[in-house]
C-alpha cells in the first residue's frame, strides 16, 4: 500500500556509526608502493598488476531444483530452460556486492539464488590464502511467481543486493527481484542446546512418567552452520520492474525504484511505503523517460539521485517536499549533434549511477561512456571516459542482437581515485582519475590459474592489428561483464562473467 504523507524528517541517530574510510591509505591502484607505475600495454605487466585470487563457480541449480520441487514448478523451470541454449542460465550472476567491511561478498543470480562468500581469515600457516573467498551461505531468495490478475510471470532473477551495515553478530542484506524486496538475516550458529528434560536428543517428546531426574540444558559446540532467514518481505508496492534499491545512511530506511516510481520504506514496516518520486504521466501516451537507477547519498540521509533513460540525473532533497518530483539539481550534458544516429537515445540512457564514497561526485554509466559529475556542476560532467567507443559504428548490429540494451554497472574504488566498469568479451576497464591512465583486463578461463597475473588487453580499432590485440569484429558479445564490485577499502575486485565470479587483487609484493 502506497501512501503519500507530509514530509518525513529523518533523524540520524547518534549511535549509528558513520562509515569511515581509511583515507590516504590507498595509493593509485596500479602500484603497491604508491608511486604511479607506467601502464604499458606492450610490456604487459607493469609494476602494479592484478592477479587472480580465485574463480568461483556455483553449482548449477538445475539439479537441485529438479530434486526438490513439485511438478508445476519444475515445468516452469524446465520450459524456461528448454528455451535457452544453455542449461545453466539460472546460474548467470545478476548482481555482486561487497558488504561494508569487505569480509563478505554476495552474488545474486538469475535463478533467484543468493550466494554469500566469506573472505578467508588470515593465518600464519597459510599466508597466501588470505584474500580468498569461500562459500559462506547459499539460499533461495526469490522464487518465480505468477501474477494471476495481470497474467504476468514475475522473474525470480535477483536484480540487486544491498548490505546493511553490521550492527550485531548477524548480517543483514536486502535482495530484490522485479517486484519484491526481501530483508534476509544471515547468522551463524555454532552451539546447540542439549539436555532437555521433556525432549530426547532427536527431539521426540518423552513421556513425563519416565522422567526421574531433572537437568539443566547446556549449550554445546556444534559444527558451524550458517542460516539465512527472511526477516521482512516488502511486496506489492511496485507496478513496474524494480531496478534499484538503496539503503539510507540512517540505516532505518531504504528506497526501491522501478521504472516510474521510487518508494521509501522503513525496515520495520512491510505493509506501507512512501512514494517519493512519481514520473508516471497522467496520460501514458506522453511517456518519454523512465527511471533507470537510484541511490541515496552516502552521508546525507535526505538526499538521493535518480537517473533516467534520457541521460539525465536528478538530485532530490526529501526535506523539500513529500513528493520529490521537483528536483533540487538536474544534471544533463548537451548532446553532441555530430554523433546523432538512430540509436542516440538508447546509448544515452544511463544504466547505473553511483555516489562516490566521499559523496561529492556521482558516476554514471551509459552505453559507451562513464561520466563523473561534480554535484556542484550540473551542466556537464567533470570527467568522461570512453569505455568502448569502437562500438559506436556498430550500433545497428548491437541493436539487432539486443546488446545495445545491456545495462553495465560502474563502481568506485575505496578512495574514489579509480573507477571500473565492464565491457564485452569478458573485458573490464579501469580508469585512474588522477593519472588519467586506463587499462583493459580480461576475466577469462585462460588466466584462471591462481595467482595468475592479468595482462592488459587492447582492442584494435582498425588498421594493422598487433600481435596481442583483438580486433573489434572478433569480440564475443555474448561474454559481457555487467556486474563488478570493489572492496570498500582494499584493492580487491569481484568481476561477474556470466556464471563465473572472478576475484582479483592488486599484487602485493
Amino acid at each position: 500500500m502506497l501512501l503519500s504523507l507530509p514530509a518525513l524528517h529523518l533523524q540520524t541517530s547518534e549511535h549509528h556509526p558513520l562509515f569511515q574510510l581509511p583515507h590516504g591509505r590507498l595509493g593509485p591502484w596500479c602500484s603497491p608502493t604508491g608511486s604511479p607505475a607506467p601502464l604499458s600495454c606492450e610490456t604487459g605487466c607493469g609494476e602494479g598488476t592484478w592477479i587472480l585470487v580465485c574463480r568461483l563457480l556455483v553449482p548449477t541449480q538445475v539439479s537441485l531444483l529438479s530434486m526438490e520441487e513439485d511438478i508445476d514448478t519444475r515445468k516452469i523451470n524446465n520450459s524456461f530452460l528448454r528455451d535457452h541454449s544453455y542449461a545453466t542460465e539460472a546460474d548467470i550472476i545478476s548482481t555482486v556486492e561487497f558488504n561494508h567491511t569487505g569480509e563478505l561478498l554476495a552474488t545474486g543470480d538469475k535463478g533467484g539464488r543468493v550466494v554469500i562468500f566469506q573472505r578467508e581469515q588470515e593465518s600464519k600457516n597459510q599466508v597466501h590464502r588470505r584474500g580468498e573467498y569461500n562459500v559462506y551461505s547459499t539460499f533461495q531468495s526469490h522464487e518465480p511467481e505468477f501474477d494471476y490478475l495481470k497474467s504476468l510471470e514475475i522473474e525470480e532473477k535477483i536484480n540487486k543486493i544491498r548490505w546493511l551495515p553490521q550492527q550485531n553478530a548477524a548480517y543483514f542484506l536486502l535482495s530484490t527481484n522485479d517486484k519484491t524486496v526481501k530483508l534476509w538475516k544471515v547468522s551463524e550458529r555454532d552451539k546447540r542446546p542439549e539436555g532437555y528434560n521433556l525432549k530426547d536428543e532427536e527431539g521426540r517428546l518423552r513421556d513425563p512418567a519416565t522422567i526421574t531426574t531433572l537437568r539443566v540444558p547446556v549449550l554445546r559446540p556444534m559444527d558451524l552452520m550458517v542460516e539465512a532467514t527472511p526477516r521482512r518481505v516488502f511486496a506489492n508496492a511496485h507496478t513496474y520492474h524494480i531496478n534499484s534499491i538503496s539503503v539510507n545512511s540512517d540505516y532505518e530506511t531504504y528506497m526501491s525504484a522501478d521504472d516510474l516510481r521510487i518508494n521509501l520504506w522503513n525496515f520495520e514496516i512491510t505493509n506501507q511505503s512512501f512514494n517519493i518520486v512519481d514520473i508516471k504521466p497522467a496520460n501514458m501516451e506522453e511517456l518519454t523517460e523512465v527511471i533507470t537507477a537510484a541511490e541515496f547519498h552516502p552521508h546525507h540521509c535526505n538526499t538521493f539521485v535518480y537517473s533516467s533513460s534520457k541521460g539525465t540525473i536528478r538530485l532530490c532533497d526529501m526535506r523539500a517536499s513529500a513528493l520529490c518530483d521537483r528536483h533540487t539539481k538536474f544534471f544533463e550534458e548537451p548532446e553532441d549533434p555530430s554523433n546523432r544516429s538512430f540509436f542516440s537515445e538508447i546509448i544515452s540512457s544511463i544504466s547505473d549511477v553511483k555516489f562516490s564514497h566521499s559523496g561529492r561526485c556521482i558516476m554514471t554509466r551509459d552505453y559507451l561512456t562513464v561520466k563523473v559529475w561534480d554535484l556542484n556542476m550540473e551542466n556537464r560532467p567533470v570527467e568522461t571516459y570512453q569505455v568502448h567507443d569502437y562500438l559506436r559504428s556498430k550500433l545497428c548490429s548491437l541493436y539487432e542482437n539486443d546488446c545495445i540494451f545491456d545495462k553495465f554497472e560502474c563502481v568506485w574504488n575505496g578512495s574514489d581515485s579509480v573507477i571500473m566498469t565492464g565491457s564485452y568479451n569478458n573485458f573490464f576497464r579501469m580508469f585512474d582519475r588522477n593519472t588519467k591512465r586506463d587499462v583493459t583486463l580480461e576475466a577469462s578461463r585462460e588466466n584462471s590459474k591462481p595467482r595468475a597475473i592479468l595482462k592488459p588487453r587492447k582492442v584494435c580499432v582498425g588498421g594493422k592489428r598487433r600481435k596481442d590485440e583483438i580486433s573489434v569484429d572478433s569480440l564475443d558479445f555474448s561474454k559481457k561483464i555487467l556486474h563488478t564490485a570493489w572492496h570498500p577499502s582494499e584493492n580487491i575486485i569481484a568481476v561477474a562473467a556470466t556464471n563465473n565470479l572472478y576475484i582479483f587483487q592488486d599484487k602485493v609484493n
Partner: protein
Amino acid sequence: MEFKLEAHRIVSISLGKIYNSRVQRGGIKLHKNLLVSLVLRSARQVYLSDPCPGLYLAGHPGAPAPPQQPEESAAGPPAGWGEPPPPAGRAAWPEPEPQPERPAVPEVLRAGDSEPAATVTAAGDTLQGGEAEAPEAAWRRVEGPRETAVGGAGGPAEVSGVFPEGPEAARGPCGCPPGDEDKLSAAPRVDGCRASRPAAAEPPASPPVCARKRGAGWVGGGPADCPAPGSTPLKKPRRNSEEQPGGAAAAAEEEEEEEEMETGNVANLISIFGSSFSGLLRKSPGGGREEAEGEESGPEAAEPGQICCDKPVLRDINPWSTAIVAF
C-alpha cells in the same frame, strides 16, 4: 536511398522486438520497449523525410510500372483528408468517419475501380502464395475488404460486388470504425474488424486477405508514394494516411503527422503499457488482440478478431499494425 533501406530495416527489427517482448519472461519491460519505440520513431522520421519516391523496398519484381497508379490515386485523396485528430481523441477511434474524408476515399477507389473485380479475385487467388503482387493490386485489395467490412456485407461475392459501388454505398457510418481501419492500419482492430467481417464472409481467405492486404498495403505504400501511404498509418492509427501522397505534396500534413508521431508512436505502444499490461501478455493472440482492441477502440465493441496474421507474416506487414497487433 540507403537511409531509407536502413530505416526500413530498423523499423522491421524494432517491431520484431516489440512483438517478441510479448512472450518474454517477466512481462513487458517498459524501459526497453520505450527505447525501441524511440528508435522506431527516428527510423520512421528518416524514412519519411528521405525524398526518394519510387523506391520499392519490398523488392518485388515488376514493380516499376505499378507504382505510378497508386501514386495518382493517392494524389486525389490527400487533399481531402482532414486534419490529424486532436490527441485527446486519439485513443478512441472515431465512430463515423468524418465526412470530409469520405469523398477522398471514393477517389481512391475510383482510381482503383478500373480493375476491381479482377484485382479482388486475383487477390483471392494469389493471396496464399503470391509474393510478387503489384502494389496497386494490393492497394485495391486493401480497399476491397474494407468496403466489405464497412458495408457489413458478407460473402466473397460481395467483396467484388460491393467494390465498385463500394465507396458510395458502403460509406455509411456503420457504427464501427472499420471505415477508419483502412486508414488506421495500425490498429489491432484493423485486423480484428477486418478479419471478423471478411472472416464471416470468407473464412478461409480472410486471414490471408488481411495479411496480404496489409502487407501489400505497406509495400504498396512504400514504393508507390514513398513513405506516406505505408508509413503514415504508422503515425496516425486512425488517419486516412494510407492514401496520403508521399513527399512534397503532403509535406504540411507530414509535419502534423510527424508531430502526431511524436506522441502517436509512443502513444499507441505506451497506452498499452499504461494499462499495466493486463491481458496484453496473454499468449493467445486472439485474447491479446481483444484486449488491445478494448484499449483503443472504446465504444464500438467489435467481435473479438481472429488473428489473421502469423508471426512471421506480421513482420512483413504494416509495421504499426504489427505493433498494435502484438499488444
